[in-house]
């Protein structure tokens, strides 16, 4: 079976969980004898020749005999907002000042929506000459492209939803994106949701028949042996937040809980890892609450630094307002760190050995943080049991489930 997979990003050039999930899934599929052609938007640095309109993808390379990457020249990056896109295209235009042979906005769309359209046109061409059995598209930016690919190739379409506009905005949806999501769901032959939590959103907010939606929980890939030895710096306990600092992830609840915890137990440091649009607000809030010296911001982390952050922490907190799945607790557990997870998350459906809390319940959140830092026996039980539990998460199961979905649409 051959799959044309449309994604946004792929490690190591990823800025969020979507890339990690795509990587895991593709590897799982390839291990189960499925051939995958993975199409990505990637902005080509430097010049953009005029003949680009004839060459659709300028980078094609084989990862293995089962996995092929195609990069389509595009300014689209995941999670990009309309404003951020406009920034990007302006900066591209500036770079080309001296070079009159091509201006960035000749090649890329003038705004986010045009770019999505332009990208989808490219996909129509790819669909025409690539050989595949099923189209598998991840999240809204690929949906218009996927719909065009389906029309051009007459092959079935499976759309995968990792996060909806409702998750990202807490209800204040961007109508354009919502419309695209809705169109994608209706045009698809089958929908894959990363959790029951997400499936419910698809059914209730987009008017989709629940039978059309399959739940395939994400897996987690642990390729390297992971040394779970705790890294101790000083006597302070460390509580970690790791994720994009944005509304969806509930960073402010982390800060408010930190304040409560520090009132009882001052020897705790709170680490906020990664960056995002709410970072500035968080820094100011921490200062305003008088805990600025106890809340440390690391900025964006990659690779080994992420593992190091988990290993240093005594507890990982994911206070997400709306988390369709949430791979980070699994990564934390794997690094020997217990987790406190929001009930509004897909991952809480599949993990047993963790603490759970409602993201808005600051009292309970801080109480559980304190309990975890104070009661060594429980901390140890949680850590050991979580480590054991996470070792049974892999991408083989999700890949197999996806294959069943493919079979059901062929």
């Amino acid at each position, binding site marked *: 079976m051959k799959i044309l997979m449309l994604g946004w990003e792929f490690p190591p050039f990823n800025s969020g969980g979507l890339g990690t999930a795509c990587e895991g899934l593709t590897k799982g599929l390839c291990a189960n004898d499925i051939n995958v052609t993975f199409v990505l938007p990637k902005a080509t640095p430097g010049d953009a020749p005029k003949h680009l309109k004839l060459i659709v993808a300028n980078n094609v390379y084989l990862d293995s005999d089962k996995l092929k990457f195609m990069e389509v020249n595009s300014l689209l990056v995941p999670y990009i907002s309309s404003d951020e896109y406009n920034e990007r295209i302006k900066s591209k235009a500036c770079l080309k000042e001296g070079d009159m042979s091509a201006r960035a906005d000749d090649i890329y769309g003038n705004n986010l929506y045009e770019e999505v359209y332009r990208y989808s046109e490219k996909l129509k061409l790819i669909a025409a000459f690539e050989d595949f059995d099923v189209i598998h598209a991840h999240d809204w930016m690929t949906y218009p492209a996927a719909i065009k690919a389906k029309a051009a190739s007459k092959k079935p379409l499976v759309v995968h939803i990792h996060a909806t506009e409702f998750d990202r905005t807490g209800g204040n949806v961007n109508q354009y994106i919502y419309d695209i999501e809705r169109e994608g769901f209706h045009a698809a032959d089958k929908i894959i949701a990363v959790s029951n939590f997400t499936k419910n959103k698809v059914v209730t907010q987009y008017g989709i028949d629940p039978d059309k939606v399959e739940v395939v929980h994400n897996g987690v890939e642990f390729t390297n042996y992971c040394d779970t030895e705790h890294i101790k710096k000083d006597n302070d306990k460390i509580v970690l937040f790791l994720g994009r600092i944005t509304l969806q992830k509930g960073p402010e609840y982390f800060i408010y809980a930190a304040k409560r915890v520090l009132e009882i137990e001052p020897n705790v440091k709170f680490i906020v890892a990664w960056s995002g649009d709410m970072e500035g607000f968080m820094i100011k809030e921490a200062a305003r609450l008088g805990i600025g010296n106890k809340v440390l911001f690391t900025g964006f982390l990659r690779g080994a630094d992420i593992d190091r952050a988990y290993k240093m922490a005594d507890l990982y907190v994911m206070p997400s307002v709306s988390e369709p799945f949430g791979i980070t607790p699994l990564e934390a557990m794997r690094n020997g760190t217990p987790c406190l997870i929001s009930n509004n998350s897909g991952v809480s459906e599949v993990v047993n050995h963790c603490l759970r809390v409602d993201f808005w319940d600051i009292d309970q959140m801080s109480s559980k943080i304190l*309990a975890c830092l104070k009661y060594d026996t429980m901390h140890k039980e949680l850590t050991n049991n979580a480590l054991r539990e996470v070792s049974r998460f892999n991408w083989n199961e999700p890949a197999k489930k996806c294959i069943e979905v493919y079979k059901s649409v062929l």
Partner: protein
Amino acid sequence: MVSVCMYFQVHQPFRLKKYSVFEIGNNHDYFDDVKNKEICKKVARKCYIPSNNVILDLINTTNGKFKCAYSITGVALEQFERWAPEVIESFKKLAETGCVEFLSETYYHSLSYLYSKVEFVKQIDMHKKKIKELFGLTPTVFRNTELIYNNELAKFIEDLGYKGIIAEGADHILGWRSPNFLYTPTTCKKIKLMLKNYKLSDDIAFRFSNKGWNEWPLTAEKYTDWINSVNGNGETVNLFMDYETLGEHQWEDTGIFEFLKCFPHRIIEHPDNDFITPTEAIDRYTSKSEIDIHNFISWADIERDLSAWLGNEMQHNAINELYNIEKSVMDSGNKKLIEDWRKLTTSDHYYYMCTKWFADGDVHKYFNPYDSPYESFIAFMNILNDMIVRMKCKGQECIISEKPSATIKSSNTK
């Protein structure tokens, strides 16, 4: 001849609140009485009252040939007195028939035998007094919490003057023996051991409504045949189970009450069979051999050992910390403090902290009022910390002006 000996266990714990860290030093109210009351009334309605009525009816319609035994914990009796006094009245009627025996156990359904013999004896004494006060009867047969049993316990109970003791007829201790006879524990001379026939007991308690069971549906006729076939191979058939089987674990619509109303009649249709109470069994039948049970057994989970309550470090930590403060609590002389401490000895609190098979969502999860074993541990330990704060105030009314920051140093018990 086959004598059927039925004993039903009646127990409700005082469940704890989801007590948070911030309540330590501020809130000395540990028990979720809203929930406890609700559950007590619900189980009274679905199980205790209808089942007692069926039993009373059986006694009357068989002219006293139907007999059985109950073991009711002190904490259950307290809850009935507060929230469902009709249950006490109903048990009183049963006691008056003379066909019902009450067993002895620890008042608080505790694991105190394993941690404090002094407390163990006190709790047995409290329970005996309560049974005498309510029903006018004095128990002569003992059952330990969750049928936890070994040789030493048998000797201890024999020394307290009991003539009989109950345990689980677990495969790994039976060897060649059958649970359908009485035995003498290795360490003892006089006391007799009655072993639960787990196959026939669990047919009712667990498998009754399971449509996947190859013997479903269990009719009175079929069950009576099985019991009859023990004739020649045994003297007593010991059917021991949780009373909540009738109406709570096995819901009314499974036909469990109809079954209960019917099969005793079938049993006594056979002139060689009868129903007896544990004391009658002990007086009538002789012990067939000695039995050596060195390691603790119980009637819980597949392992039938102590792992349901003492299988992980959290459980060990919690119970050790509790008994560490026993002396200080008793010395304080503060009645409320002592009563609260005793309510924490109830085995259920540790049962909820079990992480065995947690991933497979087993029977522990079903009964657990908390979302996870970790949450139950947190609530328990927070409460324990508050007790310690109360003792620092010498059990007087405690007003904390500053939040306590350093509390129990959890000892890593191995």
